[in-house]
């Protein structure tokens, strides 16, 4: 009985997030077992930056399953190829790969690690609306929270996949997810979280895996 209540509670406390995945393929793909991929979060010096937790979430998802894709950690890749993949020096399009690979040692380092694909992850999760009110009080006779507050988040990410063997762009996958989270105060504050970032991550990772192995 208590298990049933826990299960119902777990479902009830998870808010809804709706997501949409779109894909554009420019070239055929496929990955051998010994080949690797690297995921790089786009960073820029304005107010936006792809969250580290998002690229880690995709990496975790790609590492799971029966046929995990071998991933080179982002930090290791950036250190090995320093200074060519820093925020202000990294290539912004696949057309720049030829120039980059002409730099002494760059192609050798990439070949040594057997990196076949590079996926740039770009985007972020922003709060687009919020409202409601909740107040919490505490006194010698006890305390509690009353009211409801909510916030709507929009997670919008894109993966641009480059083939480091052919030095071309092979396609893009975009993931958009929105969801409204609530914090209801019924003596105890009860969060009902939508987690659109998580939905975008799972959707993007599933599509990225299918794209790389050439299933979609």
């Amino acid at each position: 009985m208590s298990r049933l209540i826990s299960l119902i509670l777990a479902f009830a406390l998870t808010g809804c997030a709706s997501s949409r995945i779109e894909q554009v393929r420019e070239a055929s793909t496929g990955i051998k077992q010994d080949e690797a991929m690297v995921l790089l979060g786009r960073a820029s010096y304005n107010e936006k930056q792809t969250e580290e937790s998002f690229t880690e979430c995709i990496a975790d998802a790609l590492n799971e399953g029966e046929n995990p894709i071998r991933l080179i950690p982002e930090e290791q890749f950036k250190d090995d190829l320093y200074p060519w993949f820093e925020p202000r020096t990294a290539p912004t399009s696949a057309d720049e790969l030829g120039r980059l690979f002409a730099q002494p040692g760059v192609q050798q380092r990439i070949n040594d690690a057997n990196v076949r694909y590079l996926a740039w992850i770009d985007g972020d999760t922003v709060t687009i609306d919020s409202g409601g009110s909740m107040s919490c009080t505490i006194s010698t006779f006890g305390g509690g929270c009353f009211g409801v507050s909510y916030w709507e988040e929009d997670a919008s990410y894109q993966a641009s996949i480059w083939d480091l063997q052919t030095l071309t762009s092979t396609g893009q996958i975009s993931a958009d997810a929105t969801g409204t989270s609530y914090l209801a105060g019924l003596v105890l504050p009860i969060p009902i979280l939508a987690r659109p970032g998580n939905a975008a991550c799972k959707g993007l990772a599933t599509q990225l895996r299918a794209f790389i192995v050439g299933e979609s």
Partner: protein
Amino acid sequence: MVRKFLVLMMILVVPACTTNVVVEGTVPSPLVVKIPARVGVYYSEDFRNFRYQEAIRDAGTWNIDLGAQNLSFFRNLTSALFTSVQEVREPPLTTEEMRDLDGIMIPYIEKYGFLTPSISGLKFYSASIEYRIVLYNKTGKKIGDWNIVGYGKSEGGMFTGDEAINEATVLAIRDGGARIAIELIDQPAVQAWLRREAGQPEVTAEAE
């Protein structure tokens, strides 16, 4: 009793108002074409022991020690940047001391600054560092000086404030270093110096 309580409160409260950060991070070796020159590098005491202190309203005093990380980073950077590098005393050097050197490089930290989310209103901690790189030729004549600004930012959510400032500062040093590694060799004054050192004729602006 009251006095003991006040002393205890002071001990508990005062350290919370000061954040000490000793910047630490990875020191990658740049993968760049070496500048064909034997260079002496002078690191001043200010550069070696660079510290930054700032008192921020509502965020207390920040003591940021980036000297050791910066020095370690620059030693690695210059070793990868020039054919050979040796650390030298403060210039001017004697003719004998310059015998095996083609020039002298002196890096300075001109400015350092950081922002916390409470100041910037953004989700990130950010840091910036402005370097000035001065190059002298074999005879002590200035070849040129260049100001390079490095930026770094770090998500506040995953780290405590001091860890985030550390991360942002390391990224700012990396960013500045990346610019130096890539851009220094392309500077016209550096190219002219290398041509002179190689015994090639000077290229005039008109010929260029």
